[in-house]
C-alpha cells in the first residue's frame, strides 16, 4: 500500500473530525474550520481554553 494512501486516509479522517464539531460548540467556543489548497485548518478559539 502506498504511503500516499495512508496519508490521504489520515487527512480525510482529521477533516471529518474537524467538521464534526457541532454548531453549538462552534458558536460557543469559537471553533472554525477552513479548507485551503486541499488542506484542512482547525482553529480552537480562545474562549474554549478558558
Amino acid at each position: 500500500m502506498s504511503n500516499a494512501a495512508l496519508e490521504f486516509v489520515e487527512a480525510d479522517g482529521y477533516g471529518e473530525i474537524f467538521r464534526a464539531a457541532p454548531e453549538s460548540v462552534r458558536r460557543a467556543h469559537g471553533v472554525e474550520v477552513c479548507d485551503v489548497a486541499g488542506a484542512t485548518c482547525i482553529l480552537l478559539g480562545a474562549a474554549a481554553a478558558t
Partner: protein
Amino acid sequence: MLNRVNGLGLRGPVGDAELDEIDAFFRAGGTRYAIGLSPLAPPDLAPRLAERGFEPGYAWMKFGRGVEPPPEVETALRIEEAGADRGAVFGSIVARGFGLPDVAAEWFAALADRPGFRLFLAYDGEEPAGAGALFARDGIGWLGIAATVPEHRRKGGQGAILAARIRLAGELGLRALATETGERTADRPSNSYRNIVRAGFEERYLRPNYASPA
C-alpha cells in the same frame, strides 16, 4: 491536534496566496498554529515555510500495516464497540484522556453519528477507561483518537483497542491501515509507540510539525 493544518500539499502545489490565506485564518483567531508536513508534499514547501519563520518541531511517526490478524493482547479491561448511544461516553473519555477542554467531549461525541467512523471503548468493570476510533474510506483504514484516562493507564487497554480495530478492519474487507504517534525520543515516554509496533505496524517515515512564528 488543535490549531493546526493537516494534509497541506498532498493534493497538489501550494501557492504563496494559499499560505497567506492559511496565515490570515489563524491570525484572525489570535493564535499560533502548526502545519504537519508530509514528506509526500512538494519539496519546496519546507524551505518556503522556513522563509516565513516556521520552525520544524516535534515530529510524528507514520505507520502502516495490512489487516492480517493482530497478536493477542492480554488485558483485564473489556473492549466493546460503542454504538451511537455511547457517543457521549466516548467523547468524555477522549477529552479526559487527552487533557482537552470540556468543549472537546461534546465534539468527539458527535463522531458516533459520523459516516466512516467506528468507535471503541475499554471498560474496567462498568467504568469506561479508554477509547479509540477506526475511520475507513476508499478501502483504507485510519486508527486514531486513542485515549486512556489517567487512572486506567498501563492496563493494556490501548493495545487491546488497537487489536479490536485491526480485527474489524479485516472483517470490513479493508486493504491497509494507517496510524501515527509522536516520534520516539530519549526524553519522551513512548507507550503509544510501543503499542503500535507490538500490534504489527511498520514505521514508514517521520512527519515534522512546523510551528508558526509568534
